[in-house]
């Protein structure tokens, strides 16, 4: 069972991967530095399949794509937040890190709680309760189906997005 790593509001990309640690394109190195200052035990304690649950405006600030890359490389299966900053949301979808917007689950979980997330339907189950997050928009869904934006464009070109717009 996946476990929850709970974060608060306005988690910036500076907190996810500080400027001093994103001087690389290596995903493994970024994963090891994920939340290195805001939550130093994160990278060592996160296990494959774990889930971040956060408050509002997750991923605000810098457009650095190193942030979702770091979270994904740390093993996180999905980020569930009450709201996401626009650029982070788009970056996460583009690199294949599932993100689910859900208002209600935040108050229902604590750090370490078991959780399961179905990123396509938005269904979230934790502590015996069911929640439904918002389903991704059509473009995000198309990218998720392909894996990453690069996969989608490489295989189908812009037609893949034009036909859902």
């Amino acid at each position, binding site marked *: 069972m996946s476990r929850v790593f709970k974060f608060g509001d306005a988690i910036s990309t*500076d907190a996810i991967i500080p400027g*001093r640690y994103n001087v690389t394109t290596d995903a493994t190195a970024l994963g090891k530095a994920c939340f290195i200052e805001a939550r130093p035990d994160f990278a060592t304690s996160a296990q494959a399949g774990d889930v971040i649950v956060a408050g509002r*405006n997750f991923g605000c600030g810098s457009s650095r794509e190193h942030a979702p890359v770091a979270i994904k490389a740390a093993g996180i299966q999905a980020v569930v937040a009450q709201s996401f900053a626009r650029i982070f949301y788009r970056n996460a979808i583009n690199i294949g890190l599932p993100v689910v917007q859900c208002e209600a689950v935040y108050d229902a979980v604590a750090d370490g709680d078991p959780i399961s997330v179905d990123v396509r339907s938005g269904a979230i189950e934790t502590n015996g309760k069911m929640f439904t997050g918002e389903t991704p928009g059509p473009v995000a869904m198309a990218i998720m189906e392909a894996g990453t934006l690069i996969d989608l464009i490489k295989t189908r070109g812009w037609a893949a997005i034009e036909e859902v717009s």
Partner: protein
Amino acid sequence: MGTLTEEIFSRRLGRTVHAGEIVVAPVDYAMAHDVTGPLAIEAFRKLDVPLWDPERVIMVFDHILPANTVASAGLHKIVRDFADEFGVTHVFQEGICHQLMVEKGFVRPGGIVVGADSHSTTYGALGCFSAGFGSTDIAVTFATGRTWFRVPETIRINLRGQLPPGIFPKDLALKVIRMLGAEGANYLAVEWGGEAVEAMSVDERLTLANLTVDFGGKAGLCEPDENTRLYLGDAEVSDLHPVAPEYRSLIEVDAETLEPQIACPPAIDNVQDLSTVEGTKLDEVFVGSCANGRIEDLAIVAGYFKGRQVNPRTRTIVVPASKQIYMEALARGYIQTFMEAGAIVMNAGCGPCLGRQHGVLGPGERALSTSNRNYAGRMGSPQAEIYLANPSVAAASALAGEIADPRRVTPSPTLPTRGRETPASLPTRGRETPAAPPRGRQVAGVSAQ
């Protein structure tokens, strides 16, 4: 028909476009820098296609310049190798990407520009739709010249009246962030208008558009006008206005009653009136960044520093936003003034804003910056604190060694005039010189009158 955003997309696509539509649109330019560029290049290489147009890809070394570690030099090399291989000629290492995009003429009213940096909203000051993206989106634009947009709804912000002396666009932006919160414009475009904006120079509007992303805005636009035309040195700029626009919301802000606004740690929307934090001791003052590193900002600071010394317990660091601004500041004597006052003047670029190169903060240190981000750890130690303010507050605070009200400090009467007139001695190269709009608000306390 519609908002500035809808007008721009409608013209670009040759049909009427409404907010909420998802469109795939061609862009004028795609920009990346030394930190976001390498990831974009890796993603681009995975597509295994030719570069869309080497003349429309802009690469800037600014976040870490010159390279300060072996790792950052490696990032630069990735960018250089890419530029060499694909024939990218617009490669710059002479200032902050956003300032260069404007100075070099890549930003046009009615244009669409994408940048792999959140503050790419800056170009909206000239009536260009510009937004920040991550590296993968920019990689796809490198390959195709296009990207997809959900055409955003718009918040219209009308700034009524004129800014009083000692109050600057930074204060207006922070006031709006105080009102709307850090995600108040998430997924939305913002139009900045009203009397105070109409009277602003393009430099001043750049500050408003820049800070739009810091309350979530996808783009922050001003209507192009006579100031814009003069700035661009181009009378041919076509008219662009909102036409019967339907706004998501309309916000009115009274410019005339504004106090200096300070964004207090650790969040951009933790905004207070200056008076509540006056006297806070400072270890560092940073003047610069894509928010406030332009010639008018340096003119304001020089006015306070002339003939004075900055407080010796405070590191004062001045970083012009571009080489051109640096050289203009040299010609006007500002750089000498800064150095005589005891400030450290560094090369054009992002400077200490993002804690990745020089001027980093240690644990327990406190800084006041004219930049746009004050998250914990942004400029160094997560135990450091960052206050954000306008350039006059930064100047007065550097002199006092603590947060101070510039309205209680008399600027030098011998001050160079405000930053509008480009001295004839400066080299001018067409659009590369931000020609100075002739009218607008006087910079308080800086001119001799």
